[in-house]
């Protein structure tokens, strides 16, 4: 029904969609799986007319179509339901459906209600047209959006992370609804990063990785019973195939018997069960897992940015749990955030000051609170040279640098001075190949220098390339720890796909 012919979309510095060839058939629920940043959202934007492809084209019922805006996509029968409700909460269901009609005509609410009733009956949902949308559950609101799309004549329905906000039951219902829609001859494209839902609701699964189509699972295979094997395969597709694990062997683990440098004891974060963790000098401890499973909260609790509900954080045996961010930094606990532009730096401030954000008012850069331009400048020059930061000058606003160079500034800030343990959150996210390699070398060098490293990443290849031990985080807890080795990929994969079932 709809097919992508080599569709490519580039943004500055990234290829978001790289020569995609995918066919979507009527009567099929087609699941699109992929990690954050794999290119799912871009693909949705291309299909719903928010973006146009740089190369390649979209075939609709055999004819080449260019969709320049969402209205055109709608006219072609492509309807999109987004994760966050696009309804007006203070209006009734029927009024919401009437929105977008001609402005000079009085909306025909009874007519809409009648047409709604037919469709509702057809697809087996019950909705009151007079109900105020704000009083409906999120699942019901989504049904309203689906009905709105159907009333506008959609034959191709995109559900973008539609289950992301739903309760498990509501997600189950939505899945059943998708199946009924497909039976009525619609093509449904369901975007998710939840493996279990993909297996439960999908006829066909496509996996995106780094903007490319990493692989597909055919309806024949999905119809089979061996879901364990299929989910293992999908994890491979999502996070990298076994063949590409050609990273250098990990550095040998630090001497056993030493007391750990960084230790979390029954550290309670948010509502997750308490976490225990110990990392020794020279060790890189990797935490793998799908994004949004509590990694950020855990890192922030360690760094002191968000409060922990209980437990201890020991650095060289000293409890840091009561200390502030700045005090922990001074003691040697460092945090390289993944939110480089949002919290790691201030774009309009010069590089020289960004390098010193965690040493404010310290000598020799400030004396009695008064800025000393000469030492600040000299220190910045030295760091720029040491960390190979490419910039016209140390006074350049950091926002003008490329992502790789901004990351180098963060590395310079966190690795300098008396560091003892460093938390890296997705350290190579969004970097190009060269900067990725350089950053990983820095991490390895920091470990060889005797620091304890906590590496949090969603890139399994990166974790396998660098870590000595690997844990998987899901739902805010560490579900298991394995030694890195030839079997680690399989073991971590099993932990991850096991969680998915």
């Amino acid at each position, binding site marked *: 029904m709809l097919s992508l012919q080599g569709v490519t979309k580039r943004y500055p510095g990234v290829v978001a969609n790289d020569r995609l060839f995918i066919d979507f058939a009527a009567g099929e629920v087609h699941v699109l799986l992929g990690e954050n940043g794999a290119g799912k959202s871009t693909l949705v934007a291309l299909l719903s007319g928010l973006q146009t492809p740089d190369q390649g084209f979209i075939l609709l019922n055999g004819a080449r179509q260019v969709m320049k805006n969402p209205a055109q996509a709608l006219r072609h029968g492509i309807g999109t339901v987004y994760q966050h409700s696009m309804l007006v909460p203070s209006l009734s269901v029927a009024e919401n459906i009437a929105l977008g009609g001609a402005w000079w005509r009085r909306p025909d609410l009874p007519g809409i209600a009648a047409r709604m009733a037919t469709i509702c009956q057809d697809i087996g949902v019950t909705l009151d047209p007079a109900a105020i949308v704000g009083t409906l559950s999120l699942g019901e609101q989504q049904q309203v959006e689906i009905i709105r799309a159907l009333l506008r004549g959609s034959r191709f329905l995109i559900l973008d992370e539609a289950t992301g906000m739903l309760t498990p039951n509501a997600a189950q219902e939505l899945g059943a609804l998708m199946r009924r829609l497909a039976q009525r001859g619609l093509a449904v494209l369901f975007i998710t990063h939840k493996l279990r839902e993909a297996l439960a609701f999908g006829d066909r699964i496509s996996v995106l990785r780094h903007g490319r189509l990493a692989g597909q699972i055919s309806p024949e295979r999905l119809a089979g019973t061996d879901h364990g094997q299929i989910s293992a395969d999908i994890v491979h597709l999502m996070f990298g195939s076994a063949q590409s694990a050609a990273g250098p062997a990990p550095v040998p683990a630090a001497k056993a018997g030493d007391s750990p440098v960084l230790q979390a004891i029954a550290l309670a974060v948010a509502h997750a069960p308490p976490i225990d963790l110990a990392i020794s000098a020279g060790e890189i401890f990797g935490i793998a897992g799908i994004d949004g499973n509590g990694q950020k909260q855990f890192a922030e609790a360690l760094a002191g*940015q968000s409060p922990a509900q209980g437990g201890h954080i020991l650095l060289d045996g000293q409890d840091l749990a009561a200390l502030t961010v700045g005090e922990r930094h001074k003691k040697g606990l460092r945090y390289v*955030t993944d939110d480089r532009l949002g*919290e*790691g730096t201030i774009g309009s*401030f010069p590089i020289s000051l960004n390098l010193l*954000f965690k040493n*404010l008012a310290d000598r020799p850069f*400030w004396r009695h609170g*008064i*800025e000393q331009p000469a030492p600040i400048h000299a220190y910045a020059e030295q760091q720029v040279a040491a960390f190979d930061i490419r910039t016209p000058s140390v006074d350049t606003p950091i926002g003008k640098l490329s992502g790789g160079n901004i990351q180098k500034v963060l590395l310079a800030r966190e690795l300098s001075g008396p560091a003892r343990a460093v938390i890296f959150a997705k350290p190579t996210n969004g970097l190009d190949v060269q900067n990725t390699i350089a950053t990983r070398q820095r991490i390895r060098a920091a470990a060889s220098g005797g620091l304890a490293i906590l590496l949090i990443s969603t890139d399994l290849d990166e974790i396998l390339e660098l870590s000595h031990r690997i844990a998987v985080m899901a739902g805010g807890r560490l579900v298991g720890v394995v030694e890195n080795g030839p079997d680690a990929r399989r073991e971590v994969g099993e932990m991850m796909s096991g969680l998915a079932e």
Partner: protein
Amino acid sequence: MSRIVLTAFLPFIAAIILSGLVLWLLGANPVAYYTIVVQRGLFSTGGLQASATHMAAPLLIGASLIVAFRAGIWNLGGDGQFLLAAVVVAAAAPNLAGILPRWATLSLCLALGAAVGAAWSVLPALLKAYQGVNEIITTLMMTFLGVSLANVLVKLVFADPHTTVPQTRTLPVADRLPHVFHTTISSGLLVGVITIILVQLVMARTAFGLKLRMVGASQKAALHAGLPVPRLIFSVFGLSAALAGLAGAVDILGVQGNVRADWNPAYTLTVVPLVFLARLNGFAAIPLMFLFAILSIGGESAARRLGVPNQFTLVVMATLLILLGVSETLDQRRRNGGPG
């Protein structure tokens, strides 16, 4: 050089011509109006001294706004903070003057004004620092309360029993802020100039100022760097409101001598666009405030002589501000290589 002409000089000329056009439509002679403004505001000794004296309060209000705005705190409650401080100082000064030496009265009253101003910001500061309540709304609301409270105080509590109009006791000229050398310029001007320069240096050159600017630029980054953000927000409010209160004290001790009921110069709302034009730079604010003072003082005389409304100064000022804003937008677009 051509950029300065384009972004500052041209709008200035255009504002004069446009306002002149309005004057002409009102039936007044624009050339006569501007001549009187310049003569009375700048080129007569008395006028120049009056202009300089009138700069003091706006300079301090400017300092108050620069501290707040550079830290990303939109304290728009300066008028309430100013007026309450003015009333309390006006009530206290004549009493203190009887028992204390002049220098002690004056320094005590300046401190009192600052303290009253700061006190009037505690509520918005608490709400902002710990509850994230939008300070634009709370400070503006506190201004309504502050202005009303100031009026109540003048009419019911501090009214001078010897006058028929409700006003506070008048501070004798001999007890006011001393003049600068042998002029009639009040030393309030020195307080204003020194304060705004100090504020500029603190914001630009100290670790404390940098912390405030970080909070202003990105609270997330400030938290990441380990700054005590709520405490810093609190001190910004305190500092900014104390400076507004100081402005009130200086205006009473240097110029007004008393507070009449329903008096409210509303400096803050006039000064807000001026500090933005100065790009929140204290040095740049000084000449802008001087220009504003000349227009106010000279404009008052000109209005009286030519029979145009006294508020016409504000028309000239507003036209100038709008044109400066427009030229700046155009300049920005040109530099970004965009249209225009």
